[in-house]
């Protein structure tokens, strides 16, 4: 078994009102970053786990996302990276 560090992004599903993202967008606009179209604020989780290989580590974190880390009604997730650590 190898130790892996798996990073996950959990973000509000597109189309669902994201008041936090909207407030940040407006703040950036007021600071002169006029090119910003939109911002979505989510969570970044880093999970240290052990698995037989990188694929197994990713599969395990996907199961964690489905069960607990992301809300299937309102959020999407993506595995950002899987690195032996």
């Amino acid at each position, binding site marked *: 078994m190898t130790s892996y560090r798996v990073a996950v992004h959990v973000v*509000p599903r597109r189309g*669902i*009102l994201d*008041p*936090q993202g909207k407030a940040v967008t407006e703040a950036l606009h007021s600071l002169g970053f006029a090119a910003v179209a939109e911002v979505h604020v989510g*969570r970044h989780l880093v999970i240290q786990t052990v698995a037989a290989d990188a694929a197994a580590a990713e599969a395990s974190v996907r199961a964690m996302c489905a069960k*607990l*880390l992301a*809300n299937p*009604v*309102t959020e999407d997730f993506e595995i950002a990276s899987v690195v032996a650590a």
Partner: protein
Amino acid sequence: MKVGIVRFPGSNCEDDAWHAVVDHLGEEAVILWHKDHDLQGSDVVILPGGFSYGDYLRSGAIARFSPIMNEVEAHAQRGGIVVGICNGFQIACEAGLLPGALLRNDRGYRSMPVTIRVEHTDTAFSAAAHAGQCLTMPIAHGDGRFTADDATLDRLEGEGQVIFRYVDAAGHPTDAANPNGTMRNIAGVCNAARNVIGLMPHPERAMEPLHGSTDGLVLFQSLLATARA
């Protein structure tokens, strides 16, 4: 009637609910520790308000895996009454006992009196009210924006599962009466079997004149009316 009120780490309305049941209804209530596996013969389970697990990850997301939730879900599947108030509503949604999700308010934390309209009286937490009755009670939450996809919302409306809606003083569900950006002014819903009810406002904080409103009483009386029916 015996009412079991679950205490999660971070719950803060369980004593108010206990007071409502014991002192206002004159019925039996018991506080259930979230790590126990025993509803102690409760006919009704209340998931109270508060900030279980500090609202970490998402409101209710961790509490829904507390050991006692196995028994609460089995109770609901048997047709037993479950009422989720505020954080309890969030926990019930996370557990899949109720449809939808409760997201961050579109305008931050709100602590204020609101008016809600009783849409349907065929649930154990609305049976003693009359349809269209408007009730005043407080809200106090940051994550109360009920959200579901359009198909789910249409189904909830069609099946009569929207039980409480935020309205103005004239009883209309206007944008101005919507305190948190919730879809279709929804303040409370029930499941398809109608035995699990969740709402964001706090009826247990509107039980006696000292509270500024006694309108919560009729919702608790609904539990008793249902138990005796």
